[in-house]
Structures are given as structure tokens and as C-alpha cells.
């Protein structure tokens, strides 16, 4: 049986790059998947995921197993890295008088969800691809919580910790995301009515 995340972290803290390599192998796909869903740009997602892993490596000493799972800690670093990058890119292009709001506004930071992304172009065809495209069309904060909840299997409180959102907001986002996705899929001709019509 393989070593637990916490065992590998302990070894990596002791200077074992081999142990950290195992952690990278274990989490490269989940972290990349989350970041790619957030930014909808594969090349950028790879850069940001790499940055997140490098930050995590240098901050291993700050990880406290008693406060939560390593995966949640790593997802939080990936989330913050992505949001920081997008906030910086926005500052490069947005006039100064558009700033100054205290509340984090994902709409303003994350890419325009209405625009056709590079991912959209490659994800077309069968049902799975249609679902992917529909997820791409969701609001960015919805995309993130959906991926964390239903692809990475995080609990609501873990998602709240990773995304820095209140627990109630996380539940609301997930509920609304599902509703929007259902509407998008039905609109695209995948609803029960279409099935009945075809039958």
C-alpha cells in the first residue's frame, strides 16, 4: 500500500525530493483540472499549476495536518495563485477608477464566461464533451465549486476553506450551478423532452 499524503509531506519536509515528486504525481491532474476550469486556457493553467506546486514546496513547513487534508491545503494554494494572477492581469488592463471595492468580485477578475474559450473549441461532439462545454459556460465561481465538489470529492466545509467563501454561499453556488447546467443541457437538446421525442 502506498504512503499517505501526510507521510510523503513529512518526508519532503525532511529534504526528500523523491517524496515531493510522488505528491506532484498524485495531485498534478486534480490541481491542473481545477486551474484549467477556472482560467479556461490550457497553457496558462499549466503555468499556474506549476507555480502552485512550487509555492507549496517552499511552504511545506506551514502545512498543519491537524488543520485539514493536504489536498485541501494544496487546492487553496492553487486557488489563490490563480485568483492573484487573474487580479494582476486585470489591473494591467482596467482603469484605476474601476477599483476600490472591498468585496471580492469573481466576475471582474475571472475571464468573461460568455466568450468562446480555447477549451470550447476542442470540447465538442458527444455528451461528455457537451457537458464540458456547458460547465465552461457557467460563472467562474460556480465552475470552481462544481469541480471541487463533484470531481475532487471535497466536502462543503473544505470547499469553503479552499475558495475562502462562507459555507452557505458554497451550498448556494453548487445548487445554482446545477440548475444552470441543467438549463444549458436542456437548451442544447439533451433534456428528457428531447429523449421522449427521439423515442
Amino acid at each position, binding site marked *: 500500500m502506498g504512503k499517505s499524503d501526510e507521510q510523503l509531506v513529512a518526508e519532503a519536509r525532511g529534504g526528500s*525530493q523523491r517524496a*515531493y*515528486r510522488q505528491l*506532484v*504525481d498524485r495531485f*498534478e*491532474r*486534480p490541481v*491542473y*483540472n481545477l486551474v*484549467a*476550469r477556472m482560467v479556461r486556457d*490550457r497553457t496558462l*493553467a*499549466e503555468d499556474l*499549476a*506549476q507555480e502552485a*506546486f*512550487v509555492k507549496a*514546496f*517552499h511552504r511545506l513547513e506551514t502545512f498543519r495536518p491537524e488543520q485539514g487534508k493536504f489536498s485541501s491545503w494544496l487546492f487553496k494554494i492553487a486557488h489563490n495563485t490563480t485568483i492573484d494572477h487573474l487580479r494582476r492581469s486585470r489591473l494591467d488592463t482596467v482603469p484605476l477608477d474601476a477599483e476600490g471595492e472591498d468585496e471580492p468580485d469573481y466576475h471582474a477578475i475571472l475571464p468573461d464566461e460568455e466568450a468562446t474559450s480555447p*477549451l470550447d473549441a476542442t470540447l465538442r461532439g*458527444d*455528451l*461528455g464533451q457537451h*457537458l*464540458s462545454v456547458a460547465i465552461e459556460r457557467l460563472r467562474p465561481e460556480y465552475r470552481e465549486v*462544481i469541480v471541487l*465538489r*463533484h*470531481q475532487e470529492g471535497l466536502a462543503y466545509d473544505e470547499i469553503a476553506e479552499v475558495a475562502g467563501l462562507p459555507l452557505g454561499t458554497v451550498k448556494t453556488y*453548487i445548487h445554482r450551478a*446545477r*440548475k444552470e*447546467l*441543467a438549463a444549458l*443541457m*436542456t437548451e442544447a437538446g*439533451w*433534456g*428528457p423532452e428531447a*429523449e421522449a421525442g427521439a423515442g
Partner: protein
Amino acid sequence: MKDSDLRTELMRWLRAEGADDDRADQAFGSLMAAMPRLSPSAGFAERVMHAVSPASAPAFAWGWKVALAAALTLAGLATALIPALRLVPVEPPRLATVAKALSDATGWVVEWIAGGLQVWDVMARVGQAVATAMATPEATAALVGSAILGSIALYTLNRLLTLERRMVG
């Protein structure tokens, strides 16, 4: 999961969602679990490990600095100790004597070779002249002076490079 199974899951979820059924979350979860995750390109982990490797680079740089400092210190000490050799009771062979012996030996060898090769005769005379010049106290002093100057120049260059690295960093 096959495409037909995926369709079944989708229908189950959409019906539950349309009826505001509590099982919609579970049905959607099953559907999402069947969705492939996006994957980074090949070699991603290697690139990450390469990026974290420079963390150990400062240790190597520190090692190099210590080695260079030690070498320069030894060179400086050795240069400084040369005058002290005059105080040693056993008189060391004088540089001029050694140089003269070498030049004599060179002359002898050259003369021997010159018996068969005229061109070496000319070379031997040049070598002899140079060796004789080197054997003088002035030439010896110039050699020692050059060695000291070289050490000082190396030390100064090292200081300048260290300062420049700090300014760039």
C-alpha cells in the same frame, strides 16, 4: 462509463433537477464522476521538480564561495610566508642557483642535439640567453612581484563580482 450509461445518468439528473428532487445532487455527482478530468501535458511533473530544484542552488553557491575564499587565503598566506623562508636555519636552494643549473643543463642538451641539427643550435642559443636573463636577481624579483600582483588582482575581481551579484539580486 459508456456513452449510453452517461445518457442514463444525465436523464436521471435532469429529471430530478426538474422535479426539485433531493436526489439531484447525488445524480449529478455520478454524472460528473464519469467526466474526464483535464490533464496537463507530458513532463509536467518533471518541470515542477526542475523548478523546485534551484532551492538547493544557494548551498552550492555558498560552497563555491567558501572554496574560492579558502584558495585565495592560502595563496595570500603562501605569498606572505616567502620572506620568512630567509629565517629558516637550513638554507634553501637559491632560485638563481636553480635557474643557472637549469640553464646549464638546457645548454648541454641543446649542444648535444645541435651536433646533428643545425637549426636547434640557433634555438639553443636563444634558450640559453633567456635562461641567463632569468637567472638574474632582477628577473626573480619581477617573477615574485607578478605572482603577488596576480593574487591581488584575483582577490579584487572576486570582491567586485560578489558586489555585482548582490546589486543584481
